[in-house]
């Protein structure tokens, strides 16, 4: 059960209001690459290194923050680079056990790999 915003605010103490409501003006949110479930496709896909890219993917999908980018048994990642096959299969198995659901978005990102 994740912490609620009020629980988080109570942990922030007297700084809570300032921290939670502050808005950056000089370097506004619109100018930055905000983390999100599509970070790998949106930003990592600009990088040069597929292996690093795949590592990012594994990291994101392997944590509690995994929401939409879970692995699927017939994921194309495995076919692309045999070196990573065992590692990815382990990863997939772990995820299937955790109950994550495969998504279309994931398959699309895998094909790009």
């Amino acid at each position, binding site marked *: 059960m994740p912490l609620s915003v009020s629980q988080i605010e109570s942990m922030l103490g007297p700084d809570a209001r300032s921290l939670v409501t502050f808005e950056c003006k*000089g*370097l506004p949110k619109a*100018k*930055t*690459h905000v983390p999100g479930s599509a970070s790998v496709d949106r930003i990592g*896909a*600009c*990088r*040069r*290194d597929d292996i690093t890219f795949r590592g990012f993917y594994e990291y994101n999908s392997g944590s509690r923050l995994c929401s939409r980018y879970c692995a699927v048994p017939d994921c194309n990642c495995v076919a692309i680079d045999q070196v990573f096959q065992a590692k990815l299969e382990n990863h997939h198995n772990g995820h299937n056990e955790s109950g994550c659901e495969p998504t279309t978005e994931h398959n699309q990102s895998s094909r790009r790999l």
Partner: protein
Amino acid sequence: MLLSVSQIESLLGPDAKSIMSFECKGLPKAKINVPGPDFTDRVTSLSDRPNQVLRNLEWIHRTGRLAGTGYMSILPVDQGIEHSGSASFAPNIDCFDPEGIVKLAIEGGCNGVASTFGVLGAVARRYAHKIPMIVKINHNEFLGYPNTYDQIMFGKVEQAFDMGAVAVGATIYFGSEGAHRQIVEVAEAFQLAHQMGMFTVLWCYLRNSAFKIEGVDYHTSADLTGQANHLGVTIQADIIKQKAPDCDGGFPAVEKATGKSYSKYSKKMYGTLYTTHPVDMVRYQVANCYMGRIGLINSGGASGQNDLADAVKTAVINKRGGGMGMISGRKAFQKPTKEGVELLNAIQDVYLCKEITVA
């Protein structure tokens, strides 16, 4: 809409007539390898450079608004390291983002973009096939206290190749304490880059406090920068990036100030090979690039009050002196994108202007 020759002349101001009508006598045009659409075939193909290097050189020559002219306009952005992120990007926060830098180069009609491993690597898959990328492999780290001046490697040549770069770039501080180490490091890196098919660009700088004498900064003197170029082409740079000369007599000035012999030079060069006319001083820089066999591009310098006029003037002097183009960074990226594009286009217009000829 191209700038007309009269618009360019008006930007040159009172110097227009002198710059536009000057003719180099000591090192005449007929003696140098003048840039042109056939430069790779006419000049570079005679060298030992591998075919892949020729291909990449030709790609940069065939990209952007100056495609097919033999001239080039490059956007360099490494000041985030060489100076600092805030010093560089506070005037235009879009360039804090690597994509902002590459987009400016593309929208600005540049032949290529030069930047760091981090900047170009962050967007390589999206842009390495769209615009030639030059990866700067060494930098002066500027956060150490007190600040020091030394170029150190920030990555490997193979990384540049892997991301799809067409070239590697490096800086040497000739005349500095670290110059010997830097010459060896960069020479080895350039040799590997050539083997891997990438061409090489040398930021051919001078750095030594002894070059500042009685209020004159000889870091940009024609004679010292010329010799730096000569060292740079010796380690097989394919393009020399040099500051535009604005004074001369560096060798004798250092000797006079220190009371010691410094290097070797012929007094004949002063006034005979070239004069202190800015076009003639660039011609001496070109002569030291094996008479133009290696392209000389001059840098634009810091952003100031009259960036457009200053950049156009430097470009006209570079072109008339026999140079191959301009590499202009701060004047272009430290302003809103639209103005940056206009400035880059104005520089390119100089090289597209048929009335501006090699002197």
